[in-house]
């Protein structure tokens, strides 16, 4: 089982595929103070990543996978969100 749910903690491990997207998103929607452990996760499907961006659970344990740790984790820890600052957007659209 790539995702293990316990109370307010979801532990993601191995390769989390599109099959988990629906259940995971549903859990995040209905779990107020959700926490997610990514330590043993090797890959996150875009849908799972998107659900985390939407509901912003607290990431309790950082992944050991280099790509997830270096590239993905910063985006989940409140890095960039929302629209870009409105500035000279006349160049191209």
């Amino acid at each position, binding site marked *: 089982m790539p995702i293990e749910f316990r109370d307010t903690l979801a532990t993601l491990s191995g390769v989390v595929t*599109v099959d988990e*997207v*629906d259940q*995971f*998103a*549903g859990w995040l*929607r209905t779990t107020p103070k959700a926490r997610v452990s990514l330590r043993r996760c090797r*890959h*996150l*499907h*875009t*849908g799972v*990543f*998107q*659900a985390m*961006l*939407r509901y912003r659970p607290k990431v309790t344990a950082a992944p050991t996978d280099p*790509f997830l740790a270096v*590239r*993905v984790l910063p*985006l989940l820890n409140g*890095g*960039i*969100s*929302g*629209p*870009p*600052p409105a*500035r*000279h*957007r*006349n*160049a*191209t*659209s």
Partner: protein
Amino acid sequence: MNALLAQFLAEAADLLAQVDEGLLQLEREPGDPALVNEVFRVAHTFKGSSGLFAFPELTRLTHAAEDLLDAVRGGGLSLDSGMTDDLLASFDLIRGWLAHVTTHERLPSSAAGDAARLITKLRAPLGGEKAQDEAAAVVHVARRVVPAWLDHFDQRWLTEASTWLRTTSSRMRFLRYTPDQGCFFRAEDPLHLVSEIPAVDRVDVVTPDSWPPEFDAYACLIGFVVATRAGVGEIDYLFRYVGDQIEVVELDGEAIRRHLTGEPPTATPHDPELVADAQAVLAGALRCLTLGDTISGTRLSATAHAVGAAARALGEPVDAAEADPPELREIVTRLLGDAAPTEAEVPPRPAIEMPADKPDRAHADDPGGQVGTKILKVDQEKVDHLMELVGELNVAKNGLPFLADAAEEEFGSRVLSRRIRDQHAGLHRIAEDLQAAVMDVRMLPLSVAFNRFPRLVRDLGRRLGKSVELTVHGEDTMADKDVIEALGDPLVHLVRNSLDHGVETPAERLASGKPPTARITLAAVADGDAVTVEIGDDGRGVDPDRVKRKAYQKGLISEDELETLGEADAVDLVFRPGFSTAEQVSDLSGRGVGMDAVRAGVAKLGGTVTMKSEPGRGTSTTLRLPLSMAVTQVMVVSVAGQRFGVPVDLVQENIRVPAAEMSRMLHSEVVVLRGEVVPVIDLARVLEMPWTPDPDSDRAILVVSLGDRRAGLLVERFHREVDVLLKPMEGLLAYAGEFAGTALLGDGLVLLVLNVKEVLGLADRVS
């Protein structure tokens, strides 16, 4: 492996074979323009396809080969055997690479060095290495227009990156990836794709301005911006299936700085690339309109159509549909307006040269062309699987007679038994047709086995300093793919043998009054259920006396035989294990495999090898193999309660002989059959099974004939004949020579099929 790469590898195999064949033919008929064009075209196709993959060495090497062939095609260069060697070596190298790609999906690490060496050789006749324009050709023209989506990057990072790029005068590629909303349903995983981008400097995510109230977890609403030092080719390759969902720009530090400080960029109001494409179409239309004669009809309306499309793309729709050429030219000139430089590049030409395209025309009119034929390429494994299923169907079908027996014997219903037998007969017919159809699919022309020989003969001939011409006949003859595959090694050995031992050097040939160029012939003929392949040469032939002496020295024949053995039998000695006619083992054919291995290999397939030779005139070796070997009809017998199969084509008859009529002769039992004495072999004893015949009952004897030898096999019981799919022995039993293979019976039991020849041999040793 992705489908595109798999397709490329399959296509490449065909192309490589064509190149090889074409080059060898070219060397014989230099300057044949159709042939040069054909080889050039194949090399060209190869290069074109290779460009789709990130194998730059492959593209560069094929490009060099193509340039050389192009020079030959243009008449500026005539192909000599040195060039042919280099070209063949190049395609050999590529063949090796592709084998590596098949397993590793990348080129071997030695590729760059190997390629560079050959490229230098290939380019030498053209006046040396070409300037490195290949590298430039792959990379896109960088865009100077800074897209708004750069703001999605973390601004602090972007500022730092801008400074760094300015300090180092370098550039970076920026990528915007906007996946389609429904992409999850197409099994796409954008984040995974992003993780595959090499040399990534920064990834940022683009989230919607506001999330929809009803969050649909399966709709992809996010996108990415990525900064990378990866090449455009790498990006193109990774995103080749979602090319319309990415935008790539290459920027220097200055452009980013201007963007960050809000200095106005110099940009056109439209997507500059689209504008460039639209202008290219307009320039093309202008060329069309200014080239030679006035255009009309379809060409005019097609041009008007394209001009209309380009105008729309430029945001200045025009009504060009009804325009005549001068009006159209005016419209195009007006639309191009500012893009004067583009227009200036189009010098009007008084007349265009349209050289008669002879080679291509010749192909177009080629009566042998098979435009309509649709050929389906099927993976060999699928056909094998189909054949296995046919075998299983046969087995299931063969179960019905057992069931019919049971219906009659156990349930006493003759009617039911009859009906089952009728069903069996119907099913049998369909299964036979199906089997024939699948067998037909498995048939391949012998050219598959012959293809490698022109190359082999040429290369070996050159190494041995012998001049040889290879003639091939009957390559259209069809045989089962297993037969063709199995034919490969024996044929290679025989042809090498001819080249090595049969064919003389040109000097020797001249001295004995022969033309200096020797001739080796490969000829295939279908002969009923068998195919005959003859390998002939006009070399020195086999000297029967020398062979006999040699065999005697090696202890293969007795002194008696040395005196009495006839010429034909003497020649046949070369097939004896441990015999080699060469005075010294040459590095070509003396690899520890002798003619005995050839005969053993062919015998394993149920075939025969014979050799005929005329001293001084040449040697001819004939292989005779069954056309197909997939299905065998066997007679089932049992001994000591266990059943065995005997191939039906070896069975002459089955007889029952009263025990009293058996007689003994010397040490073995015999039976007299229509005045002829037939030795009887106790199968149980040979196979070491505990069984002695009931002294009072009749003996069941299966009379088999093998070559000119006849023998009776004493068995316990005869059963029926069945069609089986013979599988080779595997595992521990693989070394049990007395069995030819195994087959599944209708009732699910495994049947061991006897190798009668070995059984007779074993019997000789036992007695």
